[in-house]
Each structure stands twice: as structure tokens, then as C-alpha cells.
């Protein structure tokens, strides 16, 4: 390697401690630059996370007093459809009659509803197969073989408790976090106390 100076006086480099101290300062300076560079990644990465206006709309408040037994409404929760169904006694019975163990995704109706509101079933309107919107919430729509919801994309059938019974979907329709703030009002996206 070429020498970088024209000095005619070769002198041994101060060995030992001198080298170590020199190395220390250089390592510290380069590390500081690295830490600084890494710190700037924080804003660059977090800017892609949901902004405040999106977060502010992350709950949906619904008045469910107008849902007659046997009817369902379609609402929007975090820009996705959510189904709220008022189950009839027959529907509840049909759901409870199925042995949980025989299901692909074993869950009882009670586990999928709130205590004291066993007739109100809140599920995402998003098929767990590939994310299509199942039919069955609106009147006259195909409810599938089990009287719940039917996904037309690849033929997944959900029962009255929104559980997968037939077709390719791997799990039951998702029940989002929600809470009753009064007997007729639910807030979806808010964990129940």
C-alpha cells in the first residue's frame, strides 16, 4: 500500500494504548452516526402507520333498538362491513343444538355473544376464506344451507351463529371487540369492560 506522506522520517506508530484510544474515538464517532441514522428511521417508518384521523374513526357506535328478531343490519366498522343480527329463538336453538366438538372452529353461540344479550350476534362481514362479503344480512339474500350467511365467492356456508359449516373458509366469521354502552347501543372497536 502506498504511503500517504512524503516524510523522510519513518517513526514507529505509537503502539498499544495510543492505537486503542484512536480507535475508540473513531468507533464512537461512527457509532454516533449510526445511531443518528437509525433514529431518523422512527419518523420514516411510523408515518406509514394509521394517522390520527384514521385512528379517530376506529370505533363505530350503533343503535340496535330497531333490529327486529330475525333481521340484521349491515354497518361499517373500520371501512369494512359488520353484521349485527337479532337472532330468533329458533335460530338460537338451531345454533345451540350443534355439538361444539363437531365444528371446524369449535365455538358455542354463548362464546360469540355478550352475556345478557345472547340474541345479538355481531360479526365482521368478511369471509375468513379470502375476504369477500358474505350474503344473508339483507332480506331476501341467500343465507346458505345453515340459515346464517353464505359467501358467493367460493361457497362458504355459515350457520346462525356465524360459524363455518361448509366450504373452504377456515374459521368462523370474526367477532370484533365491542361493548354495550346501554341496552340498545353498542360500540364496536371498544373492548367490553
Amino acid at each position, binding site marked *: *500500500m*502506498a*504511503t*500517504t*506522506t*512524503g*516524510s*523522510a*522520517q*519513518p*517513526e*514507529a*506508530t505509537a503502539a498499544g494504548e495510543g492505537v486503542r484510544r*484512536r480507535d475508540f474515538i473513531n468507533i464512537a*464517532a461512527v457509532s454516533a*452516526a449510526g445511531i443518528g441514522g437509525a433514529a431518523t428511521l*422512527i*419518523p*420514516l417508518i*411510523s*408515518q*406509514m*402507520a394509521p*394517522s*390520527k*384521523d*384514521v385512528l379517530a374513526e376506529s370505533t363505530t357506535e350503533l343503535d340496535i333498538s330497531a333490529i327486529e328478531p330475525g333481521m340484521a343490519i349491515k354497518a361499517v366498522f373500520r371501512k369494512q362491513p359488520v353484521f349485527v343480527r337479532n337472532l330468533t329463538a329458533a335460530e338460537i336453538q338451531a345454533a345451540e343444538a350443534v355439538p361444539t366438538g363437531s365444528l371446524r372452529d369449535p365455538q358455542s353461540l354463548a362464546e360469540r355473544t355478550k352475556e345478557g344479550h345472547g340474541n345479538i350476534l355481531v360479526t365482521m362481514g368478511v369471509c375468513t376464506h379470502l375476504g369477500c362479503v358474505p350474503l344473508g344480512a339483507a332480506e331476501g339474500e341467500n343465507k346458505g344451507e345453515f340459515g346464517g350467511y353464505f359467501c358467493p365467492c367460493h361457497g362458504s356456508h355459515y350457520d346462525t351463529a356465524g360459524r363455518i359449516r361448509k366450504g373452504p373458509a377456515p374459521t368462523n366469521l370474526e367477532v370484533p371487540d365491542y361493548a354495550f354502552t346501554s341496552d340498545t347501543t353498542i360500540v364496536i372497536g371498544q373492548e367490553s369492560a
Partner: protein
Amino acid sequence: MSFPWANQYQPKAPLMRYLDEKLPLPRLVYNAVGAGYPVPRNLNYWWNFGVLAGFALTLQLITGIVLAMHYAPNATVAFGSVEHIMRDVNWGWALRYAHANGASFFFVVVYLHIFRGLFYGSYKAPREMVWLIGVVIFLLLMATAFMGYVLPWGQMSFWGAKVITGLFGAIPLVGEPLQVWLLGGYAPDNAALNRFFSLHYLLPFVIVGCVILHIWALHIPGSSNPTGVEVKSESDTVPFHPYYTAKDGFGLGVFLIIYCVITFFQPNALGHPDNYIPANPLATPAHIVPEWYFWPFYAILRAFTVDLILPAKLWGVIAMFASILVWFFLPWLDKSPVRSGHYRPMFRKFFWFGLIPAMVVLFWAGGAPAEEPYVMLSQIATAYYFLHFLVILPMLSWLERPEPLPFSITEAVLGEDKKAVLGENTTPAT
């Protein structure tokens, strides 16, 4: 393309050796800004601004790409989307202030870089091509900055766009159709905003390409230096790394401190308050001014107030463009064999007592309202500006007797002292 004593890239790790065979990118970096690029050992801190300009370009690219994820280039929502960035996007305020002030600091650094080149004669043979590409970069930078300032769609964005595109209207015959074509309408509106956004995103990458050419062209003859004397022997140079990486690292720290003081504590000081008012085509601001970095050219534009053969407006437009275009001819206008202003007694006087005051006046007058005494002052400064580049510099090479140059860079570094040596030892600090 380099000096014979340049360090050779010798990868030791097997992976690096493999890479060197297949795609010698590390070798390219090593030879461009690493230990394989021998640089004059006497560069002062004025030589930091090239690297800083590269840093500023990177900063603008990163913050700009991120801001484009949230900005909406549509005249009805553009202003609101910027406010959305400022209020709701995580760290959006920091990113936008960093980008807006980053533009200003990019210009600060580029102006100092150009100033260095002008004083030390960096534009002279054999580095004409470096200079020419540099002027192209500067023009692209101005275009990019102008279009970027339009994007927030505030009052100054709108009226700035109207005034600048209106300049093209001064061109005889084709002017008005050209202006309408540029805007895609009769006044700045959605069409103009959209194409400005598209080009504002594109041009920085063109600048990156030109910067690569700029550095490539620089590496043919190697860097200039404050004496202007060419490198003669190995003792005149040191490897870029670690010597100038260390020096640039410190310079970068100082730059960032000043930049962050402005960005975090006075982020709107370099902007105009009117740009926080949404664009309104029916109400003109009290006086329209571009961003500060355009003030000298804006002053030259407004200095031509009287028709003389050509209409005054056309004179102003021609002069404004000419004021930058003259830089393209600089290597052939200034034929003095001596590069550095240090050894040119007359050049030095005209530079410090002519050009610099004229530029200060142009900066000041360009930001001031179009009334007296600013117009008259800008006229004197404009006259000097053209005299300096087009008349004084060409004549100086006939009239001036340069001072004696040092024999070599090494001699300049050692000075008069016969006992001085270049260092404590000959072991290169790598």
C-alpha cells in the same frame, strides 16, 4: 483516470472477492469516494459543500418520497392534504418542515459550492465538463424547487406559478400558446398542479443522474485545490478515505446543527406567511415574492423597466435566463492561466468588492417590494453582474499579472519553513 499511486481495491473476504468479479460495485465506491481516490491534501472547508449538497439531495429525496405517500395533487384538496400531513400523519409535521427547510438548505449549500468554484477557478480546464454539468444540475434544481413550492397550493404557490409561467408569455409569437400549453389551461389549476407534482417527483432522479456524471467528470482530472496548482507527486495527495470522509463528517455535523435549529425552532422563517392561505385566483397577495433562493434572479427580472428596441418584460426574461446561461461560457470567458483567486490580485478585488456586494444587493432587492430605492439598486447590481462575467473577466486575462504560484501543493502546505515535514510518521492512518 486516477493517479498511478492511488490505492488499489483488494478485497479480502471471499464474498467481497466474488462480488468484485461479478459486479464490482464496492470497487466503484472505493475508487469514487473511498481510499482509492487520491485528493489534494490542502483542501479547506470550502470543499465540504459538494458532499453536503449530495447529502441534501438524499434528504430531499427521502422526505419527499415519504410526503408523497400522503399528499394529494388535486387543486381542491392539495392544501387540505398538506394540513392533514401537518396535523394527523405521524411525524408529518417533522417530515414536511424537514423537506421545506431542506430545500432552502440545499440552495444554501449549492450557492456556497458555486461560490467556491467561482473564487478558486474550479470551472477552468481541465474541469470544464464538471462545471457545465454543475450548471445543468443547478437549472434542474431551480425547476424542481419552483414546482415543489407550487404543490401546497397556497396563495404564493398559485401566484408564483402564475408569474413564472407568465414569463414565457413574454416570448414573441409563441409566448402565449406556450404559456397555455405549460399550464394546460389559462391560469394555474388542477392540470398545472398535477403535472408539476409529476415533474417534481421525476426531476430529482434526473438530478441524481447528473450528479453521477458530475462526480465522474470530476474524477478524470481529480479535485482542484485552493492553490489551483495541479497535483505533481504522491506527496501532494491523501486518500479520500479516511481523511476527507472524516473532515466531511465533521462538516456534516455542523450543517445538521444549523439546519435543525431552523427546522425545529423557526421552521416558517424562510417561507412566506401567505402560503398558509389557500390559493385564491381572485385575490392577489400584496406583493408576490418567490422563495428567497430565487431573489437574485427575480431582482434581475424586475430590473429591466424600460423598453429599448425590445419590450421591457422581454428584456427582463432574457436577462434572467442569461444571468445563469453565462455560467455555461465561463470557462472560455475567463482565460487566465491561473485558477485560484488567491494568486490573482485584480480578480480578487473585483470578486470581493464587485461581485459579492452585487449579489448581496440582488438578494436583498429581489425580496423587497417593486418600489424605489430597491429597483434602482437592483439595476446597478444587475449592470455590474453582467459586466463582471461578460466584460471584466474576459479582459482581466489580458490586463492582470498574477502573483507567483507555489511550485507544488506540498510546498504550499509546508510554507517557508525548511524544517517542516508533512507528518509525524509515514504510516498512513487507515
